[in-house]
């Protein structure tokens, strides 16, 4: 829509999920260009799901994600478990995958060898280029994936638990990289569990428990009350949940708002264009309305 800021990622009443069960439920907000945003929440809060949704890996159940001008500029670091590390591939070839958008399937990567070696050096893996990926330790492998991110030169970086199972020294090195990217004006969203890390490195935080619990400056978001509420919200999974009756119609704003504090961050703008009206807003007309903050 015209009001979507170029370079920003805007979530419009976003619901993502699996098998109709929402994992992210009616989320609104804007991730402005250059943001350094931590995504915090208990297991099952929808952090990974939200990142997958933004990168386009899973379709929206409802609502939409606007990312004008960013379709080709998002890099995504999934949880490492999804990569086949037994495949006989060299570290250099793994990092070279980051060149795909520039080289496509056929152009030679030989001219970019210096770029690849620089990226490996930047993550502390100089001299590892010929090693097979299966011989790397967990931390070294994560460093290699960060080298691939460097090579991608993306404007937006989505990192899914990038420091899980990684030792302190490696984490510190990789965090320095993240801060350098932030300094270059790139947008970074990282799902994290270490609250100390979030407090000291991430100016903004989205606390998620399927719904948005709080979104704003980190020190205002990570309060004991918010964290306790996130914990209790995320535990509600109902196999026989009723069809969601929340319509987000235009008109009296937020008469259906289930989350008590819903403190809209300053960047969360409700345009006058009624964009909360969903084309299929009356699909579930006949179903009983149930609370969703159960």
């Amino acid at each position: 829509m015209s009001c979507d800021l170029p370079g920003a990622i805007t979530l419009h009443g976003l619901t993502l999920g699996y098998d109709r069960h929402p994992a992210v439920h009616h989320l609104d907000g804007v991730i402005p260009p250059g943001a350094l945003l931590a995504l915090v929440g208990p297991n099952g809060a929808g952090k990974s799901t939200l990142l997958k949704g933004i990168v386009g890996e899973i379709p929206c159940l409802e609502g939409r994600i606007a990312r004008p001008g960013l379709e080709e500029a998002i890099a995504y670091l999934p949880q490492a478990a999804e990569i086949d590390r037994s495949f006989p591939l060299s570290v250099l070839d793994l990092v070279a995958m980051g060149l795909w958008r520039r080289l496509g399937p056929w152009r030679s990567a030989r001219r970019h060898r210096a770029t690849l070696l620089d990226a490996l050096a930047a993550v502390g893996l100089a001299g590892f280029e010929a090693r097979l990926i299966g011989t790397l330790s967990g931390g070294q492998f994560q460093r290699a994936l960060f080298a691939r991110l460097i090579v991608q030169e993306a404007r937006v970086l989505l990192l899914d638990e990038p420091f899980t199972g990684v030792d302190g020294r490696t984490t510190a090195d990789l965090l320095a990289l993240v801060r350098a990217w932030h300094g270059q004006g790139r947008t970074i969203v990282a799902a994290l569990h270490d609250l100390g890390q979030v407090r000291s490195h991430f100016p903004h935080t989205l606390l998620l428990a399927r719904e948005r619990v709080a979104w704003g400056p980190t020190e205002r978001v990570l309060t004991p009350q918010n964290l306790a509420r996130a914990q209790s919200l995320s535990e509600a999974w109902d196999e026989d949940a009723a069809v969601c009756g929340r319509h987000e119609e235009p008109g009296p704003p937020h008469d259906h708002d289930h989350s008590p504090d819903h403190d809209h961050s300053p960047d969360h703008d409700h345009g006058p264009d009624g964009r909360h009206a969903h084309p299929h807003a009356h699909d579930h007309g006949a179903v009983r309305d149930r609370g969703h903050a159960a």
Partner: protein
Amino acid sequence: MIDLLFGPFVEFGFMRRALVGCLALSLSAPPVGVFLMLRRMSLMSDAMSHAILPGAAAGFLVAGLSLPAMTLGGLAAGLAVALLAGFVTRSTVIKEDASLAAFYLISLAGGVLLVSLRGSQIDLLHILFGSVLALDDPALWLLGGIATVTLFGLAAIYRPLVMECVDPLFLRTVSRAGGPVHYAFLGLVVMNLVGGFQALGTLLAVGLMLLPAIAARFWAADLSGMIPVSVLIAMLSSVVGLSVSYQADLPTGPAIVLAAGGFYLVSMLIGRRGGLVRRLVRARHLEA
């Protein structure tokens, strides 16, 4: 020894034709097999080889023992099963192996039914075990064409195919090539199975595709080594298998596949990369 190995090829035209056909197949099938093995889809090719049977049988019913008809039929049936299985995998909860099993069983049963409708036991044996000693010119052209298309095709999709194997999620985030590449690869598998079934029969077509590839795993660390080694092993298997079958008056298809099986067993025992003997007699570890 040399004479024993190569004598038959010098002496007889049909043995030379058989050798040329098998060498062409040795160029194309093992590289495909390497990718199948690395994608943990080894048994998938076995299923696919069964899936092409009804197509070949339908061709046989329509046109008798005719190469073009049976080849086209086999290709059509194989591609149909590959596409249907791929479609079901990508659109439902069923995983690739299960959806493939379902379609190939349907296809195989249909094929056996078709063959039994017409044709004798000997025809059925011919389809199942191939006729490498009776390769005519069109059959050789077919095998050569398949080898050419496979090598160029594999070169064209090599990079995205490797990415699909290692990190399919990454490929999906940077490109839409994943789906087409997957189907193109399945197409190459089917093509090589149809080629193999000309020479070795449906039951053994998989042998020259997979055994050299698996054996190569014990000699080379990465793809750039595994693919040439697998081709070499397949070619050696062809020569040895054809000679032995001639000297000992044995059926050719099984002899070639057994030769490849022999190379696999030897590789498994003494291979440099994780072979059994290497594991048992370990060299002293390094300092760092």
